[in-house]
């Protein structure tokens, strides 16, 4: 067990030796080492967050056929630091009539709900915040619940009608889309037999789960984008409709916490897409080949996981900068009338197929699952198509009546 195979344990043992050598009781030393680990992880995440701001601005610029920040530093790399400095030196105001305590706690809770997600993400088999929490998948929803709470706190305490409406809409969307997301989290649980993330990743050794359940990956992506409050589901902070939604009265570093928290949240959900459906820190089974056994190093695992998270984040950004915003009642109708029934049916079909095909050969299992997903997706699209044709006919009918009435 050297530093290169198990860095976390080696470092913590070394620190424990030092601290007990200074005369600290062991339990205090262990708590201190725990805090140091948390501090290290949060510091690395915050630095990553700063670069996510840069990536976001460069990518949106390229999608919009321009260059993006390129003045400060090579390729504009110093730009986010300038942004942070600007936000820090802004005046820290609280609007008159606002609920001071709630107003100031809301951005902290929002950032906290994103950071605590990283406690259960396995960066490598040995590098994980909480040692294989066997309810990891459910923990994500719990952290999302705290994020939802922080948004409504922000909207209410701002004493501003635009903020309140924006917060109501955002919370309604988040609470509604938690249901398909939770149901889709159950599908890797069925395949892996456990809700713990390490177990889910280890179970993806021969084939990652998106081959078994592509429709589940798509629905999870849609629900995750709605949870994040990013376009096309960003009605709550639609800049042209609601000023800035629940963000309206926030400026300076508090706004910075909301904004950076949203980007880190998107990156984290890219990571969850990678873990649940694309094999997590595993390199698609390459590291099990004896010749490539050096790929088993935890640092390679961290790199693979972050690369998959970045890929997921890029897909989320791609969707954001391509699609138009959806109206709030269409969003909710889409969830309750289409996505939730589809996700329940998909869960039942997956459980049924899993029970039927459990003992058979791998290719039979894969083919059965994949085909069932494709068939279900096709049926869902057909239903949606029939429904939309009917809606369009109704609108066309009204329009022609209106035109006839005009003449």
């Amino acid at each position: 067990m050297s530093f290169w195979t198990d860095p976390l344990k080696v470092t913590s043992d070394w620190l424990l030796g030092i601290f007990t050598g200074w005369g600290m009781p062991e339990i205090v030393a262990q708590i201190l080492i725990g805090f140091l680990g948390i501090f290290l992880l949060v510091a690395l995440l915050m630095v990553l967050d700063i670069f996510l701001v840069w990536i976001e601005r460069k990518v949106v610029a390229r999608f919009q056929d321009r260059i993006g920040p390129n003045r400060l530093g090579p390729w504009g790399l110093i730009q986010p630091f300038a942004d942070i400095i600007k936000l820090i030196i802004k005046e820290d105001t609280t609007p008159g009539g606002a609920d001071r305590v709630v107003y100031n706690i809301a951005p902290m809770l929002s950032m906290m709900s994103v950071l605590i997600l990283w406690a259960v993400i396995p960066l490598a088999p040995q590098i994980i915040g909480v040692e294989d929490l066997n309810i990891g998948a459910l923990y994500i929803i719990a952290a999302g619940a705290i994020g939802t709470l922080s948004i409504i706190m922000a909207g209410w305490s701002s004493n501003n009608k635009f903020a309140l409406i924006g917060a109501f809409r955002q919370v309604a969307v988040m609470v509604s889309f938690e249901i398909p997301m939770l149901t889709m989290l159950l599908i890797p649980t069925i395949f892996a037999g456990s809700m713990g993330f390490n177990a889910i990743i280890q179970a993806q050794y021969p084939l990652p789960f998106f081959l078994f359940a592509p429709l589940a990956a798509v629905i999870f992506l849609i629900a995750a984008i709605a949870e994040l409050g990013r376009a096309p589901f960003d009605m709550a902070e639609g800049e042209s409709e609601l000023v800035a939604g629940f963000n309206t009265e926030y400026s300076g570093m508090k706004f910075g916490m909301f904004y950076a928290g949203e980007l880190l949240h998107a990156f984290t959900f890219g990571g969850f897409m990678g873990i649940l459906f694309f094999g997590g820190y595993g390199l698609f089974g390459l590291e099990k080949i004896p010749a490539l056994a050096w790929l088993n190093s935890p640092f390679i695992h961290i790199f693979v996981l972050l690369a998959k998270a970045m890929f997921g984040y890029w897909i989320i950004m791609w969707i954001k900068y391509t699609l138009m915003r959806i109206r709030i009642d269409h969003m909710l109708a889409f969830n309750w009338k289409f996505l939730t029934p589809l996700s329940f049916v998909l869960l039942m079909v997956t459980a049924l197929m899993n029970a039927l095909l459990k003992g058979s050969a791998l290719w039979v299992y894969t083919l059965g699952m994949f085909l069932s997903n494709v068939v279900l997706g096709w049926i869902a699209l057909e239903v949606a198509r029939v429904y939309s044709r009917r809606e369009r006919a109704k609108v066309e009918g009204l329009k022609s009546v209106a035109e006839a009435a005009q003449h």
Partner: protein
Amino acid sequence: MTGEQIIFLLVALFTLGSGLMVVISRNLIHAALWLVSALFGVAVTYALLSAAFLAVVQVVVYIGAIAILFIFAVMLTRKDMRDQGPQMNANWWFGAILSVAVFAGLFFLLQGWSGLAGTASAIPAGFDAIGELGDALTSPNGYVLPFEVASVLLVAALVGAVYVSFNRK
């Protein structure tokens, strides 16, 4: 005083303090937010009792849904943003006496029970709490009937709540 006892005392004080603020707070939104912190304290208590699934479900169901429902209900049932009038009714002193009496009664009732000072037996190694819970909830020898009845209850509550509060334009 072991570490676990200290942690339990801190969590219990936090939860009881938040509960007290829930029932005393004049501003109803603050009361709902104190409820959130009380529920979070209860979730930490479940984690102390090694009931990890209950702790996470507590946060998801209570804080993620019920507390938000309370905040929405508070916002939808007021004429303006401020709270009006006294928040305790005329007989609040009687309520206080009664609740202290209930607590004293429960306390003395518990003293008469022999198993009170029991300590927790160790959980067998490799005990899959979630698997056992899933088995208990879905096996015919277990509690599948209450589980199904609870789901019917939730559907009834869903339909009832929508119907009662439906705004016929």
